[in-house]
């Protein structure tokens, strides 16, 4: 009955619903859905930036299998997920517990912990390049305590680890807020009952808090793993456009950017890599959701 008035409007102004939705649909169609479809099509062509290209079937994908750089990118993007997701699921939860209590000044701490999220990734990247430089703050502190300087930005593996640390550092505050919202919904009776039963803080955390925020942990795991697989900026800024020593730190999205742009860009080949990125992210999402369902049953 509440809808009757609205439906009469349709007779009155038949075009206006579409006028409302048109700008949004136009932009989404032209710059998201059309590029998505054309990426799928381009992946099967030898299109280049200035050359329209022709259908080549699975040639791009066959070439991928033989391309060492592709395997390097796939390896690094996968390692990134493995290295970044566990700390991003656990640490922000501990941080949320730390800032949950309404003690004086806590709003300041919450905001301060969120600052790295707000700062642009370029700023964050350049700050960490300076911190991890051979002569930077971290090394100068190491030297002060008598340790050797470490080449964080020159060794292939240390570089990847450093980029992971930057990703975790920048993401902490974001996931902390998500956990904070979830913690607010944990019924206090559970905590009180456990406390009456004599459970200590650690025990209560494992038996009350963790089960109560489990679905949030799955959400954080899904969000952070998909984001980690698509990593670009952190590694690009720390390792440089060519991806560190001999390109060994290149990630898949860096490879997409490098092969697909410029006047000689191989749009078709880059699209094929992008398709791999799509497929893996969809699989990652399904894996996380499936793990969630299994544990529930």
């Amino acid at each position: 009955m509440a809808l009757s008035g609205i439906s009469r409007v349709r007779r009155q102004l038949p075009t206006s619903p579409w006028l409302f939705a048109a700008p949004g649909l136009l932009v989404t169609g032209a710059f998201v859905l059309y590029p998505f479809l054309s990426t799928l099509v381009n992946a099967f062509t030898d299109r280049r930036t200035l050359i329209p290209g022709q259908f080549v079937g699975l040639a791009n994908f066959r070439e991928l299998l033989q391309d060492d750089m592709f395997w390097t990118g796939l390896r690094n993007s996968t390692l990134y997920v493995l290295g970044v997701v566990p700390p991003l699921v656990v640490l922000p939860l501990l941080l949320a517990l730390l800032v949950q209590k309404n003690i004086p000044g806590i709003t300041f701490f919450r905001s301060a912990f969120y600052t790295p999220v707000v700062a642009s990734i370029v700023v964050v990247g350049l700050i960490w390049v300076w911190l991890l430089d051979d002569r930077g703050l971290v090394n100068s502190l190491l030297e002060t305590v008598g340790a050797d300087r470490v080449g964080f930005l020159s060794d292939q593996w240390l570089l990847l680890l450093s980029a992971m640390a930057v990703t975790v550092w920048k993401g902490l505050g974001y996931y902390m807020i998500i956990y904070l919202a979830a913690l607010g919904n944990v019924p206090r009776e559970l905590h009180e009952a456990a406390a009456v039963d004599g459970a200590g803080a650690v025990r209560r955390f494992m038996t009350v808090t963790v089960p109560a925020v489990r679905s949030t942990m799955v959400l954080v795991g899904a969000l952070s793993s998909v984001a980690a697989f698509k990593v670009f900026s952190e590694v690009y800024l720390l390792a440089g456009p060519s991806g560190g020593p001999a390109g060994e730190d290149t990630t898949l999205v860096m490879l997409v950017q490098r092969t697909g742009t410029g006047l000689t860009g191989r749009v078709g080949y880059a699209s094929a890599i992008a398709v791999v990125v799509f497929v893996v992210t969809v699989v990652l999402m399904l894996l996380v959701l499936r793990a969630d369902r299994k544990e529930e049953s």
Partner: protein
Amino acid sequence: MSVLEKTPPREKVPAAVREPRITDEHGRRVRVWELALRYVLLLAVLALTIGPFLWQLSTSLKGPTEDIYSSPPTFLPGDPTLHNYERVADTIPVWDYALNSLKVATANVVTNCVGAALAGYALARLRYRGRRVATLAFILAMLVPVEGIIIAQFTTMRELGLNNTLIGVVLPGCIGAMNVLLMRNAFLNLPYEIEEAAFVDGANVWQRFLRIALPSVKGTLAVVAIFAFMGAWDDFLWPLIVLSDPSRFTLTIGLNYLHGTFANDERLVAAGTIIAVAPLIALFACLQRYFFRGVGEGAVKG
């Protein structure tokens, strides 16, 4: 102003906030040693999250004669100077880049607020054939990873002749699907009766949208505006791909360029990064309540 604002707010302020004594989230008194431990941990995390920014600020204020590589490091500049900020401006047109970023971010805020509000209203409140398809289009668009379609976006932009322009930087994200769905949820939560009353009074669909529905979702609109500004100001990958002419760079791309060209003078890079991050931190400090609400809403409503 609107009728809806008189209804009580949905979020309750926890009672503990108003009490003067120090209590936990359940209203119990917190013990002193536990409180001390909390502050120690809080300060440790504070050093880790804010420290790097302060170190960058300190580096940017150190003069040319000061050793920035000393060991042990000196945290406070011996003779603070703004000299490096002048030098950045001599080296790259940093204020032009900041202006470009400001243009892009402002345009992004306007287009996202207007476009997402209009489309969200159409999805939530209007009845017409094809509404489900339109909703589905936005949901699908939200799921498409930007990183994967960026090359196709670039070729689309080339075909439109808009690559290497600021319009080209703005267009792909100018009405985010996520924002449309956020606005849709906000409009869905409004009671129908108020619009009904306006309809009976003879208000047409535009009047109802502008005078009644829109003022009632100001909170969500603010969240969309803040995230649109931040997203555009901070974006890196897309402007990197679409802009090639240094005179059109935004601040993030300009900084990356500064770093690549003059990597050997950290003072300059530091000054540049502070110019890029300071306005954003100031904006965030003023609007942090909306930030946290926005993240919370995004996470809960998915």
